[in-house]
């Protein structure tokens, strides 16, 4: 767009002006840009990129954080592949993706399907409420849900009140229920985001598309698959990327709600990395887990984006 403007300008002015205009035109390479980028790049490079590179470097060492480290090549990675706790951590993350990503996206789409039949008045209020969980610090979220899941907390009281008292249990202390309970926290945090994302997207779908579908005799279900879902593809992709990354990170809630327990049933990679680095003093090993986690996140984000961009061409 910028080059168009420069070309227009050039055709309307004299030769001398043209040369000057072109020299200053935004379409030309401008070294002054570096002046504006360098300060930001410096912080980003020094405190984000450089530490990441340093993590990769550390992952090739056997180091306790105090004495001199030993270069052991891929030793940490080999150990990680054989470590049952690493495998469990990633398996737990995969299970959390169901709760953090799949469930909220499915819920969001279902609601959007119901809601797009007509405009929603007072959406601002609902939007504000639905988005609230996104604003709350993970530590606070953990405290709130520790109470909700507590032995005498609201969830168990509710179950007892409706005659399902036999299901009541201390959810976060239960070996088979702790992980799904943590997942429930993730669903709570992300479903509003998905809903608002999809509903906002759906409200901007031209009404003529729906009219056309209805003239063709499409019911609610076909209307959803023929009109709403295709129009929301970008939003769905974004929601998947965001929520999947959240599921793989999820350190704050785990650390504060379960500390990985009971036993190791809610260990996730970031938590196990933290334990290795700052509790067991296995710094190199922790770095290797961090690298594997980063690679997993980039790979998953890459896959989602690749699949969605291929859909664009088709």
């Amino acid at each position, binding site marked *: *767009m910028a080059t168009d403007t420069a070309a227009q300008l050039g055709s309307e002015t004299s030769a001398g002006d043209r040369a000057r*205009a072109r020299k200053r035109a935004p379409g*030309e*390479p*401008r070294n*002054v*840009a570096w002046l*504006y*980028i360098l*300060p930001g*790049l410096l*912080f980003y490079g020094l*405190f*984000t990129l450089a*530490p*990441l590179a*340093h*993590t990769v470097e*550390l992952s090739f060492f056997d180091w306790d954080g105090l004495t001199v480290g030993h270069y052991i090549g891929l030793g940490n990675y080999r150990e990680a592949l054989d470590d049952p706790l690493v495998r469990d951590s990633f398996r737990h993350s995969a299970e959390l993706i169901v709760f953090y990503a799949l469930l909220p996206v499915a819920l969001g789409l279902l609601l959007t399907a*119901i*809601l797009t*039949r*007509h405009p*929603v008045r007072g959406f*601002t*209020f609902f939007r504000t*409420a639905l*988005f609230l969980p*996104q*604003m*709350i*610090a*993970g*530590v*606070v979220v953990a*405290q*709130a849900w*520790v*109470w*909700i899941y*507590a032995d*005498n907390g609201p969830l*168990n*009281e509710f179950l007892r*009140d409706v005659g399902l008292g036999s299901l009541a249990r201390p959810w976060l202390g239960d070996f088979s229920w702790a992980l799904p309970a943590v997942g429930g926290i993730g669903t709570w945090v992300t*479903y*509003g985001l998905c809903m608002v*994302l999809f509903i906002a997207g759906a409200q901007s779908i031209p009404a003529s598309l729906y009219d056309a579908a209805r003239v063709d005799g499409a019911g609610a279900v076909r209307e959803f698959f023929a009109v709403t879902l295709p129009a929301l593809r970008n*939003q769905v992709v974004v929601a998947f990327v965001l929520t999947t990354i959240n599921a*793989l*990170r999820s*350190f*704050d809630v785990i*650390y*504060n709600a379960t500390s990985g327990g009971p036993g190791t049933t809610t260990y996730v990679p970031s938590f196990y990395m*933290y334990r290795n*680095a700052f509790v067991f003093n296995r710094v190199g090993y922790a*770095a290797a887990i961090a690298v594997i*986690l980063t690679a997993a*996140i980039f790979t998953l984000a890459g896959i989602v984006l690749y699949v969605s961009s291929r859909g664009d061409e088709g």
Partner: protein
Amino acid sequence: MTATRVERAVTYTVLTLFAIGAIYPVLSILFLALHTKSDLVTGFAWPTDPSMSSFRAAWTEGDFGTGLKSSFIVAAVVTVVSAVLSLGTGYAFGTMRFRGDRWLFGVFLLGIIFPYEATVIPLYYDFQDFGILNTYWSLILPQIGQSVAFGTFWMRAFFRSTPPALVEAARMDGASSFGVLVRVLLPQARPALLTLCALVFTYTWNEFLLALVLVSGSPSKQTAPLGLSFFAGAVRAGDPTKVAAASVLVAAPIVIVYIFLQRHFIRGMLAGAVKG
């Protein structure tokens, strides 16, 4: 075809249910906080006789005055500095072309999906070597780095949306690139900047892992979420109402700002998300 009454009723019922679901856990901890330990709270815990004593106890025992102050200092510095830096990077990427610009912008984009968990280990050891472990700097510097990635992306989108003719006209009048930025574009950038500041402040305020790793050793530098985590670990078994009160103290500043600026928050998170 207009929606039937039944459809409308279903819509609002469903929306209301999900809105309550989003709010309830937050309210439940507020209700719990308005009790005292001797109430032996169970279940929904509607506070029939609200009491502030848990808040008072949490405030003094958990030293949350210090925690909130630390959080505020760190979040304010990170917000202001990253806003200024992002204004620069966004301006360059949004209005200028230079060698390697696409490649470099891609590097910044990486910082948005990037798990910063992978950087805390070297940050801890490097900051130890620099002697800034357990200082505000150890929290401020890395969070500026992380925020600049999103800020660059966000401000670039804003600068690309400004009419190029505006910039052209100012340039023809002989304005320097800095003059164009400050006199022509900055006045229009205020809403975009406000959104960016609201988001960066919130993310920084809520941050936990960096605080846990980098300032655990110094009680006077601990942020409010870190203080809450320690306080909960020490007190929860004895008196959950105090932990609830402390949680409310930590969340309240952000929730209050959110209620006033909700449009900015939501716009930032949605637009940032979709364009990403």
